[in-house]
């Protein structure tokens, strides 16, 4: 199929940036979205033009590196998939496709479609871990009994790949879904309870400092999240934070 692409091009962080039109032909419906962009870049390379910069790594939906705001939605129109797992069969011959970087003050554009998501890393460093000694005296994981229900919820929360689609989709560029998933995966397990109070206080503090917005509970994040992270996590973090800040 033949497509018309409107792609955000921006030389570097300081460049103003603009949408540029490209035509691409003979796109196979079996291609992934990133493969389609590879073909475009091949073309641009051959013409001696600067290829479009975009993030990617695993290309199997598990690393969280790929991003892109496609036709007004993070990771495109499909549900429960990352951009690398989005297939061109979701589009029709002759379609115009808008491709933009994730937009947030805390995700500044580095080049074209690549944004800096290290603000997520800094939130993680503020408390998204448990302090256990792993040098040779690790406890047997099964020694601590955990309710199946909680183990499942914790595991679900832990499937967050930190892609930032939640931030990109939110009208407030809020990181609540991401941060709440990271808070929840520990809060639900006894191993995580030890540092639960400081964890939620510190991670929320960092989240605010990084310039993410607050939550209006619109639910856009849950719809666009490729991993189906639930809004229940946000409510859990709201509870955790309320209790922690009264201690």
């Amino acid at each position, binding site marked *: 199929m033949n497509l018309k692409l409107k792609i955000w091009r921006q030389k570097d962080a300081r460049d103003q940036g603009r949408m540029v039109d490209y035509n691409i032909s003979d796109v196979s419906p079996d291609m992934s979205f990133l493969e389609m962009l590879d073909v475009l870049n091949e073309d641009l390379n051959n013409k001696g033009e600067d290829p479009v910069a975009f993030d990617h790594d695993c290309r199997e939906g598990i690393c969280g590196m790929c991003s892109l705001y496609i036709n007004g939605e993070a990771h495109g129109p499909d549900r429960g998939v990352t951009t690398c797992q989005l297939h061109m069969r979701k589009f029709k011959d002759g379609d115009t496709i808008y491709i933009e970087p994730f937009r947030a003050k805390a995700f500044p554009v580095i080049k074209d479609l690549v944004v800096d998501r290290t603000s997520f890393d800094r939130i993680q460093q503020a408390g998204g871990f448990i302090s256990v000694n792993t040098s040779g005296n690790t406890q047997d994981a099964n020694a601590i009994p955990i309710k199946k229900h909680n183990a499942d919820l914790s595991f679900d929360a832990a499937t967050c790949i930190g892609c930032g689609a939640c931030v990109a989709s939110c009208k407030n560029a809020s990181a609540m879904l991401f941060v709440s998933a990271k808070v929840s995966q520990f809060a639900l397990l006894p191993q995580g309870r030890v540092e639960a109070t400081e964890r939620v206080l510190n991670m929320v503090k960092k989240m605010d400092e990084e310039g993410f917005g607050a939550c209006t509970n619109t639910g856009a994040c849950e719809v666009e999240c490729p991993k189906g992270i639930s809004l229940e996590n946000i409510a859990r973090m709201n509870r*955790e934070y309320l209790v922690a800040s009264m201690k």
Partner: protein
Amino acid sequence: MAKSALLKSSLAKKYWMALTGLFLCLFLVGHLLGNLQLLASGDEAALHFNEYAFFMTTNPGVKILSYVTYFSILFHAIDGIVLTIQNRKARPKGYVKNNAAANTIWASRNMAVLGTLILVFIVTHMVNFWSRMHFDENIPLQTVSIDAGDGIQQEFYITTDGSYVPKKQVEDGTLEIRNRTDFYDARAGVKYKEGYKDLYKITVDFFKNPDYGLIATILYALAMLVLAFHLYHGFGSAFQSMGLNNPSYNGLIKNFGKAFAIVVPLMFALIPLYIHFIL
């Protein structure tokens, strides 16, 4: 750290938003139950309504509640606007193409606009009624026509202790109205009895006014539509902000919230519509 966390963080701002918002929902129920009395007509109904209004403005318990309400509206509005400004700043550059309808309902994206319109309505509404009740020097006092047994209808003021003062006595100067509602013996200069502010009449006259009654009725009904949208998202959202989200009762909150958002504003809107078009 913990203390400032409960005042300044983005989460804390939302706790206050939710608490004040839910308190205002309770206020709406109380206000509605009182106002529905306006749907009954006649002297009896007017008296009931005016007695109720008298109780609401003099009872100390209700006074406290009314101050909590004023505070909640102010705090909710200011907090809401502060949040909205901060949230805008979190995305300095927007998307060229954004398909927000794919993942959110319209009301949830427009809470600030809806809220600001509600604020404009609240101020207008207070100028229309609240300020007259509190400050109007020539506020009408409730009267009834009674046949005193001689076959002639006479106008009487009803007083708060349940007795009647002939209107004639005020007209001929035997009694004077002072402090807006008090009947004074003109010669002795002592307070005799107290009348009821006729808020029923003020309300009916307002919506039946030949000049602006129709436009006021339409604007009041539209304001209730705005409130409905605000609550359609807001009611359920407040529970989520407070951390109350549990699959076993989420459906209940959601459905109750949607019903609340439709029924309460609709009943409010019926009052001016009824007065203007039917009464």
